[in-house]
């Protein structure tokens, strides 16, 4: 089974790093994975997307993900048309917001048959990291709703990327978001 994840954020929020950390965690588990950014010339603040593919078998295709299994939204202020585009029917939508999945569905008028999950990653990031950088927290939330890699592998991937105390704090954020994510089947 191959899972295709699309990440949406703004330049500087770390969507690309999130995509990479998830892939790296899968690779440390012996799985196959690809992580790549939407290749653009964008700078800080511009909407960006990144992709992760995870599979038990080698991944050959280098196509961008047009029909993701799950969309992860780091910044709730992004327009929904941007991140819902191509999301598979019955696909998963994970959003960083203070709202519950029901509230989000209503307020945005989302009518697709998606399973929606929400997590207040900004609060977690502010509490633990002291910065509104939510990418690692969102990886923690993701592996809860789609358990394709273990949270320990995510922790390893983070510690390989960020050294010392920054790494430890980010692992803490991952675990907090893992516990805090809300959804009807959780």
């Amino acid at each position: 089974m191959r899972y295709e994840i699309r990440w949406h954020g703004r330049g500087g929020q770390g969507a690309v790093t999130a995509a990479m950390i998830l892939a790296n965690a899968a690779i440390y588990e012996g799985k196959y994975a690809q992580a790549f950014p939407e290749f653009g010339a964008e700078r800080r603040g511009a909407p960006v997307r990144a992709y992760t593919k995870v599979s038990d078998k080698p991944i050959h295709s280098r196509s961008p993900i047009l029909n993701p299994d799950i969309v992860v939204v780091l910044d709730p202020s992004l327009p929904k048309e941007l991140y819902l585009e191509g999301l598979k029917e019955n696909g998963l939508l994970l959003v960083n917001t203070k709202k519950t999945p029901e509230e989000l569905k209503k307020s945005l008028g989302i009518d697709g048959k998606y399973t929606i999950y929400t997590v207040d990653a900004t609060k977690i990031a502010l509490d633990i990291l002291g910065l509104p950088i939510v990418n690692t927290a969102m990886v923690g939330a993701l592996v809860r709703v789609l358990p394709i890699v273990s949270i320990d592998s995510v922790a390893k991937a983070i510690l390989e990327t960020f050294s010392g105390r920054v790494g430890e704090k980010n692992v803490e954020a991952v675990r907090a978001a893992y516990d805090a994510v809300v959804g009807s089947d959780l």
Partner: protein
Amino acid sequence: MAVTIQRAKVEWKRLPLSSNYAVAYAVKDLDVDVIAAYPITPQTTVVEKISEFIANGELNAEMIHVESEHSALSATIAASAAGARAFTATASQGLELMHEILHIASGLRLPVVMSVATRALSAPISIWNDYSDLMNTRDTSWITIIASTAQEVYDSVVQAFRIAEDPEVMLPVIVAYDGYIMSHTYEPVLVPENNEPILKYAPKNYNRIKLDPERPVTMGTLASPEWYYEFKYQQVAAMEKALEKAREADKVFAEYFGRGYGLVEEYMTSDADIILVAYGGLFGTIKEAIDMMRQNGVKVGGLRIRLWRPFPAEDVKNALKNAKLVVVIDKAISYGARIAGPVALEVMSAFYHDADKPSILSIIAGIGQRRITEETIKEIVDYSRKLLERGRIPNESLYWGVRGVRYE
């Protein structure tokens, strides 16, 4: 020459690396002495990673932060002339700026290695991928390998130094791969825990002719009409030798490390009516498209050109000879030519004198990183089948996906 080699006892670690990082790891494991480079998208992270290795003491090398790519290649080949194992990396405009020195590197027979994260050319400026930059190096007498995975990038850089420094070759080598599509994609790569086996496979030779006060030589001379041609013919012969040596290098690599690639990669070609020919990362997408089409009973296969220069014409012909139609997808344009795909031209010329040959269709696609998905590949194959049924294969390139251009 019979080559027997025992499988090396290598402890591999499986790391998530982009193709750019894979290059940097190979450079480290090959104990390269001098690196001179200038930043350019999407090559930059190669040089950043190598700088990290040097800064941390993991690689004992001199890094020259040159003021241009022209100087990058100049310093690299001069370091090689002074006896060092030398490396540089670039892309796109940077490779164009180096162009003059590309010829000097090969003309002086300096065994440097350069990685190219391929990218489109200005104007208009495009930081995205195609192979226009690389294809402009076609006639510079550089051995050129085009890899399709980050693992192959690592392995190819290792092979490149062995081929380049072979006393019977002594030519520079480019290892190319898709800018962004591969340069910035993380994927699993096996790298050795220690680099001893790598250096055993590609040992350094400090005893070649070099700028040595003990044995002074004059390098970079002037050759009059009665001398010049012979030196150029030496390069022709060295390229021929390089074909054999590249094959051997890959074979030994496979025996030694358990991974090999060949000079071309075939995928489901044996019974294929239609064979798609491509290079670089696109081949992965093509393989998955072939899998999908095969499920629907379409007899389609794929051939990847891994060694671009010298061109492995016999390998290509063997793989393609039984096909009804060969579709070559080029990610570069030779403007003003009816067959504008550089690789298509090469495949066609390989068959030219044969009575029995497949029809060959040239497709241009992916220019400036115009998206190519499995769906695009299926559309190309569907259209090709239609042409085959009509029995009319156009003797000109088709520009796939250009708005305003339609092929009925």
